[in-house]
């Protein structure tokens, strides 16, 4: 027992691991929190798409030796706003808008790196995440984005909830839906950008979607889903990073596998009831109260 404990504590002696663990836990919390809005808006694919779009900015800033965070951030934000704009037009669905804009951006990134070579951060780390590539700057960036996201989610809680539940009614009820959507896209772009090195382009979508889906299977309340998803994401990041060190597997891969294991556990524990709820397969249920009309409609007319 003591040898397991010693083995568990061993990596904590290394600064790179502690930094990686901190970033992975915060990244899990961040993605878990934002994933709730993304999945409920039917935009699960946006995490996958935006991470690929950010990769275009990553490559472009690498080619011109520009600051990675700034270059990829501007690129990602522009892509997110373009997706939001195109999908709101209703002529093209959100999935198609994401597919066109983000894959084009990813292809451009690959073309730039092929033509001019990579002068910036590791290509592999950007794709699959890395435990050793975490610098002090990364810790501070993820911490700042996490704090900013929590402030946005708490301070704009009702506007975000209303515009996610029913954007049309929210629009006529005092919510500036377009501005709220843009704010969410900004926070999402920042989150993907900040977590790219630790989780990787190819896997960041899973950390956005899986914790939110697991939380949805466990509750029917929005506020509970929000904090449950954040906790599941954070725990997934913490355990995944530890397993990544001990098994020598890329960090993003292990974080996603831990999240997926949580999904399977909850699925078994709820016997599929949670999944039916999450997928909208529940049958219509009559409430306990049967309200009897106190007058017939004809009595309304004067």
């Amino acid at each position, binding site marked *: 027992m003591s040898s397991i404990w010693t083995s568990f504590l061993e990596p904590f002696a290394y600064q790179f691991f502690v930094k990686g663990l901190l970033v992975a836990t915060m990244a899990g919390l961040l993605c878990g929190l934002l994933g709730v809005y993304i999945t*409920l808006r039917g935009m699960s694919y946006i995490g996958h798409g935006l991470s690929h779009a950010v990769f275009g900015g990553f490559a472009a800033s690498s080619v011109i030796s520009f600051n990675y965070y700034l270059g990829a951030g501007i690129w990602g934000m522009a892509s997110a706003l373009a997706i939001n704009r195109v999908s709101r037009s209703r002529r093209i669905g959100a999935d198609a808008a994401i597919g066109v804009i983000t894959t084009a951006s990813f292809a451009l990134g690959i073309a730039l790196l092929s033509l001019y070579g990579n002068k910036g951060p590791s290509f592999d780390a950007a794709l699959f995440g890395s435990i050793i590539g975490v610098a002090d700057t990364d810790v501070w960036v993820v911490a700042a984005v996490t704090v900013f996201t929590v402030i946005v989610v*708490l*301070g*704009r*809680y*009702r*506007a975000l*909830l*209303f515009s996610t*539940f*029913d954007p*049309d*009614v*929210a*629009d*006529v*009820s*005092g*919510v500036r839906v377009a501005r709220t959507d843009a704010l969410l896209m900004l926070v999402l772009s920042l989150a993907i950008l900040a977590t790219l090195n630790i989780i990787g382009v190819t896997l960041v979508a899973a950390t956005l979607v899986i914790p939110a889906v697991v939380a*949805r299977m466990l*509750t*029917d*309340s*929005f*506020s509970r*889903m*929000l904090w449950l998803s954040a906790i599941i994401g954070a725990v997934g990041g913490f355990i995944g990073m530890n397993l990544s060190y001990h098994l020598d597997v890329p960090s993003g891969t292990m974080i996603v596998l831990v999240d997926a294991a949580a999904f399977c556990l909850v699925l078994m524990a709820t016997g599929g009831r949670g999944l039916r*709820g*999450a*997928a*909208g397969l*529940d049958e*219509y*249920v*009559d*409430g306990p*109260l*049967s*309200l009897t*009309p*106190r*007058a*017939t*409609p*004809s*009595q*309304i*007319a*004067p």
Partner: protein
Amino acid sequence: MTGTLTQRTALAELDDVGFGYDRRPVLDGVTLRLEAGTFTGIVGPSGSGKTSLLKILLGTVHPQRGRVTIKAGLRVAYVPQLETVNWNFPVTVAECVLMSRPQGIRWPWASATERVEVHDTLDRLGIADLAGRHIRELSGGQQQRMFLARALLRRPELMLLDEPTSGVDVKTRHEVLHLLGELNDGGLSIVLTTHDLNGVAAHLPHLVALRTRVIAAGHPDEVISPAILEATFGANMEVLAHAGMPIVVEGHHRHARQA
């Protein structure tokens, strides 16, 4: 929207309003006056411009022609069609009702005053004990009451409802109409759209028949006539009288007679 109650305060006035999509006119030359305390039903077939008219009153679309005058500071609430709502969304009744206070920096949790307001509004509509329920667990009538509660929490002067009885059973339709009648008696101005002539329109105090243009406006006895219905719906309909109310019967189909 009546020409007989001119002494009342006008909440909204539409003067020769025109609106359309892709050069296709949806509304053309619509002139209406909506007065405080009225209960108006807008009837017409699909694509007749009912929803566009509501959107103009809500200010979410702007007419391409004509003039719209809305009373300064008018508080408007909107109740959507039940069929357009995602009932699987993870939200409880209380959470849904509280959405109507979204402006500015709002914390996730309700203030003590808001909790009392939500409870009182739900209680007024007879669903206070369902506050903690998931919205999917409500019956059709309870779901409509929840949305009415959300709208009422905005303390509106004017409530707009888009097909409030669409897709609900007869009992729920009676409940909803009765409830709206009570709210109107309490001074709330109401405009609803409907294509249900017998179940809804015939029971309302005032109707507007719309088919891109206003075909007729007035009491159901005046609006529900074979000529006006044919001009509005483009179909042959007969009107019978039962217990002092008009009842619309579809005209005979030739193939039905042959059968």
